[in-house]
């Protein structure tokens, strides 16, 4: 009887895995098919490197590609140390009552709708940036990436905490028994042992950072220029899709957003591969347990 049950469960799991894999491939195929007419005419290079000027017949998405990378990478650069530090505070430095309070606050932040962050950004952060830098409108790459860091950090902190908690207690006890400090235990045992969890956390958060639409749409200014500095207004691929989506279905503008979707897909995939590759490369030098 048990075997029969097991077989059903295994089949079901296999089917759902297959479905999600097919869905990912299907979406990729859908985008290729719809974006193909744009690329087929030999415009691939033009679209990937050119400017966006619909009234002159130019539908390049290069500024948006750079905008997306700038906003999300800068956001991750803010979020990663912040999250790592916060997770260390919760699990290592002050695992008692204070750590628990911080953890509860972080947990409640994960459920906050993105639009709330966008709203706070537009009424608090943007005027603040404008007065501090006295340049531009305050709607810029920096504003969007700061808010994006606030958005992705809570999830990243909790994933880090979980990763640290997965390391067997006995390893840590061994360090303490040998006379090591809590910080040494963390740096030499917990951190290397939870490498995989950290990679997963960073991968998921990068995906969210690059895929988020609302924060950049509300705070980055959406100008169709190549951002020259972090204080420049910029448009991300996701905002671009949101802004152009309302255009006439038959218009070339609308067709060009498939190129955006495709690049978003590719950029995310490449980013994931780089993060995983980097983690694997470093893994060779990490101690085996």
């Amino acid at each position, binding site marked *: 009887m048990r075997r029969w049950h097991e077989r059903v469960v295994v089949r079901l799991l296999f089917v759902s895995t297959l479905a999600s894999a097919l869905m990912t491939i299907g979406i990729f195929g859908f985008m290729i098919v719809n974006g193909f007419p744009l690329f087929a005419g030999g415009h691939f290079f033009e679209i990937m490197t050119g*400017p966006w000027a*619909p*009234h002159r017949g130019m539908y390049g998405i290069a*500024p948006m590609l750079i905008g997306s990378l700038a906003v999300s990478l800068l956001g991750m650069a803010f979020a990663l140390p912040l999250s790592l530090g916060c997770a260390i505070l919760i699990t290592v430095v002050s695992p008692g009552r204070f750590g628990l309070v911080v953890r509860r606050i972080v947990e409640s932040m994960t459920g906050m709708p993105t639009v709330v962050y966008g709203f706070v950004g*537009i*009424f608090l952060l*943007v*005027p603040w940036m*404008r007065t501090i830098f006295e*340049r*531009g*409108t*305050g*709607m810029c790459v920096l504003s969007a990436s700061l808010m994006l860091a606030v958005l992705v950090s809570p999830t990243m902190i909790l994933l880090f905490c979980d990763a640290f908690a997965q390391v067997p207690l006995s390893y840590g006890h061994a360090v303490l028994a040998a006379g090591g400090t809590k910080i040494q235990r963390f740096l030499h045992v917990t951190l290397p042992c939870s490498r995989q969890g950290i990679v997963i956390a960073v991968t998921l958060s990068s995906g969210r950072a690059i895929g988020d639409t609302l924060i950049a*749409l509300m705070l980055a*200014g*959406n*100008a*169709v*220029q190549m951002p020259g500095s972090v204080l*420049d*207004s910029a*448009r991300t691929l996701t905002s671009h899709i*949101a*802004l*152009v989506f*309302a*255009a*006439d*279905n038959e218009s070339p*503008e609308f067709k060009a957003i498939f190129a955006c979707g495709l690049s978003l897909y590719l950029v995310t995939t490449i980013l994931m591969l780089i993060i995983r590759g980097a983690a694997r490369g470093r893994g060779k030098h990490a101690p085996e347990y």
Partner: protein
Amino acid sequence: MKKILLSVVVLSLWLCAGAMAGDLDGFQGEKGEIRIAGGTAHIPVMKEAARRIGERNPKIQISIAGGGSGVGVKQVGEGLVDIGNTGKKPSDDEVARYGLYLCKWAIDGVAIIVNPANTVGALTQEQVSDMYAGKITSWKDVGGSDKQISLYTRDESSGTREVFWKAALKEGTVAVNANFVVSNGAMKAAVSQDPSAIGYVSVGHIDASVAPVSFNGIAPSPQTVKDGTYTIARGLYSNTKGAPTGLNKKFLDYLLSKEGQQIVAEQGFIPVQ
């Protein structure tokens, strides 16, 4: 005697109520849903009309969404909403493709706005064109303080943008560093916060948080739009796929009724009737 007096009171109250309802009578006993989306200039009038209809007929649900004129055409054309609003006349191609029926219920001006702290109160067409093209970059060059101009514009699907681009910019270019906002409301919020901003909104959206600028010497107001001296103007349309029927027809009729047109005027637009 008392009874007669009471019935007189009741009767007169009933007559009064009947007289007041007037244009809303058509909705009596109706129930159902009207889904509206599209142009963001329309929203104040849509909301007020929906409030009045809903107050007397709680069984009628009216949902109002923005998205811009492009969304209005697309969603009504694809049957996602019942009424699609556009802040411009839908193109012949769109009308033919989706079989749209147009209902124009107001005329609206598009006003150029600046932050209330800005001292510049008048601009010419050339100045506005040059500012948006990035040829004039400081408020100093148009009589203001020495501050860099922050340009705000709308996305391609905005009806407000199209009218502004044609009438104020004469189809000129917009500098690539212009910031994009997604609705009339967002434009107002952005300009009211940024001391060096220039933007444009539907005249019906102007309040104390932003300062309208006169264009070629004419201040935007319902009067100047109506008599045609203020030239950046357009019609506000509510469109249906095929001829409107049932509740949708009643809603459009209400917009064109005396009371509907009064709402239009109260919200700062120009009635068409």
